[in-house]
């Protein structure tokens, strides 16, 4: 469903990704781990189509479409979602209004009828309960004055509302206490289905106790240097990254 081959990309002549290969099938959960500066967030941004990166080599396909040809909004219409590491604030635009526009844009692009206000409110109230969001949350301006934890919860809430087929979660666990982490993970797991895939970017194994991956990849210096099952995450937790990096440096 989602496939990256030999992806090279960078910013202003500086290479960040140096040949990434990754294939994700429907229903799979993949985790990307790695030390700071290895290119994890860049990978998330490039999948979502953020401006300012230059892809110099390689391909990226989703549902048999060349993603590199599409703008970020068109990718969203196809069912790609990015839960931001640092969600932005939009003053004066309330969360409900924002989400209604987003949902209807996506529906429009897929040839579905737009939801009316009543249907939509009912729909998002169910989703809000899932994330244990307070009642006034939906009326507040998008992310304005939200705590770090609330912003992250809002990201997963939006994911639950938009029901993407492929979601990238960029360090969704950072800044969350253990209770919030459980709520967020619970939300993520509820969205899971045999048709939907997830790519979880994280520093810590902790998150993977709650969101159990099928595959774990270590990204280092712009390349995936090791892949394995969920036990790889536990091993990394115990031994750190150095042994992986060292063994990757060995000529094969």
């Amino acid at each position, binding site marked *: 469903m989602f496939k990256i081959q030999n992806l090279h990309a960078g910013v202003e002549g500086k290479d960040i990704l140096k040949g990434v290969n990754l294939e994700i099938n429907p229903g799979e959960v993949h985790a990307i781990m790695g030390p700071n500066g290895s290119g994890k967030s860049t990978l998330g941004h490039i999948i*979502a*189509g*953020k*401006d*300012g990166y230059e892809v110099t080599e390689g391909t990226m396909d989703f549902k048999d479409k060349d993603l590199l040809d599409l*703008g*970020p*909004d068109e*990718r*969203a*219409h196809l069912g790609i*979602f*990015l839960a*931001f590491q640092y*969600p*932005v604030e*939009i*003053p*004066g*635009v309330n969360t409900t209004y*924002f*989400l209604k*526009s*987003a*949902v209807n*844009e*996506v529906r429009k*692009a897929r040839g579905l009828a737009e939801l009316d206000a009543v249907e939509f409110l009912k729909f998002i109230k169910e989703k809000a309960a899932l994330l244990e969001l307070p009642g006034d949350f939906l009326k507040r*301006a998008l992310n304005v004055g939200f705590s770090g934890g609330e912003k992250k919860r809002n990201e997963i809430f*939006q994911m639950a509302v*938009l029901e993407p087929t492929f979601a990238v979660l960029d360090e969704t666990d950072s800044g969350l206490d253990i209770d919030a982490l459980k709520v967020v993970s619970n939300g993520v797991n509820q969205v899971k289905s045999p048709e939907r895939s997830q790519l979880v970017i994280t520093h810590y194994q902790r998150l993977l106790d709650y969101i159990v991956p099928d595959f774990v990849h270590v990204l280092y210096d712009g390349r995936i240097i090791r892949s394995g099952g969920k036990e790889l995450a536990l091993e990394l937790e115990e031994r750190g990254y150095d042994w992986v990096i060292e063994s990757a440096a060995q000529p094969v």
Partner: protein
Amino acid sequence: MSDATETIEGFVKSDYKYGFITDIETDSAPPGLSEDIIRFISKKKEEPEFMLAWRLKAYEYWKKMEYPKWPMVQYPAVDFQDIIYYAAPKDPSDGPKSLDEVDPKLLETYDKLGVPLHERARLAGVAVDAVFDSVSVGTTYQKTLSEHGVIFCSFSEAVKEHPELVQKYLGSVVPYTDNFYAALNAAVFSDGSFVYIPKGVRCPMELSTYFRINAAKSGQFERTLIVAEEGASVSYLEGCTAPMRDENQLHAAVVELVALDHADIKYSTVQNWYPGDEEGRGGIYNFVTKRGLCKGVKSKISWTQVETGSAITWKYPSCVLQGDDSVGEFYSVALTNNRQQADTGTKMIHVGKNTRSTIISKGISAGKGQNSYRGLVQIRKNATNARNFSQCDSLLIGDQCGAHTFPYIEVKNTSSKVEHEATTSKIGEDQIFYCNQRGIETQDAVNMIVNGFCKEVFRELPMEFAMEAQALLDVSLEGSVG
């Protein structure tokens, strides 16, 4: 500059959607200004002697004045001898008696503008006094209004029918000596609106006037006077558009509001004069003096303006808070795109005790637009316990525009409290990307962010006009997508 900034700029380029010229014969005075022209105007309008005398005094005063150079706007000097000061649509009879008699082309124009003149007016509950160039062509719902004792008519009609009211209040808030353009207006003003709400009456409907400049090289100098007697209340809306022309047109209006004890006047403006093209050719010079006098105790005057048009805007709707416990409000959205320039703001003059004022100003600059907020909060010596709160926010789109804030605060009473808050922000690429990622395209994202920024002002507008204002902002920011 990154790609995203360029993209954002691409989206704010817009075409003026109201640029059509109505082809009807006009009955114009030759260009230029002289005592003869003023006598011609006064005679055309069959004015009483006091009106002509006032015009001539204003003209004498104006001749000795110089045009103001302090606003932060740049434009070539206006040649006042090259302007046509009187242009009325030609009509074989003495003017239309009802809507049926109005030139269909004129009605078509209003149709394009969306002025609800026909049955729609009744549905919308709007009474419209439509000013086309210099003569008011049709005033609807005068009957319903007159049952309540409300007078809503063209200024020329008021001069003839209610000379005692006009004489009593004309120039009482904005004297002809006030400034260069107010003096010019006093000398040559052609028409406008007059509203009188008698004691204790709440005006039963929103009153609305659409102004439109049509004839080439004509200046429009309308004058509006609204008087709310003791305990009266009224909400008034003006909307403005002008056709596209290469040369610049001058619009120098004067608006005077008088609120007596416990009276309440709400004045809303949606201004969409032709802003000129991308290179800054053509467009309206909008030099307007608007001022309200809270004359009585516990009176209230509230200005709300949404300014998206004009090549140059120079305007400061103000309140003189004379009555004790009176309240003044100013809510403003000013958008400058391409090469538009705006120097706008307000003056709150606190004279009486316990007077309160609120200023919420939202400036949006896009393209090469320059947007200045200029405001004065003055607390006079006897204004015990006066309070003011000001908030000036600027939003920048792209990196070639400018936002400037010139707040003046003068306090002569130590018991008063004055607050001023100001912010400047930029529509960020991160915000746009965030919206894009959720499936919202860039144009819609920009509109959404701008409308969110203006929300505090839009909610002050009457419901149907809030929708219009929002649509207008979207249109003004629209560009070729792709």
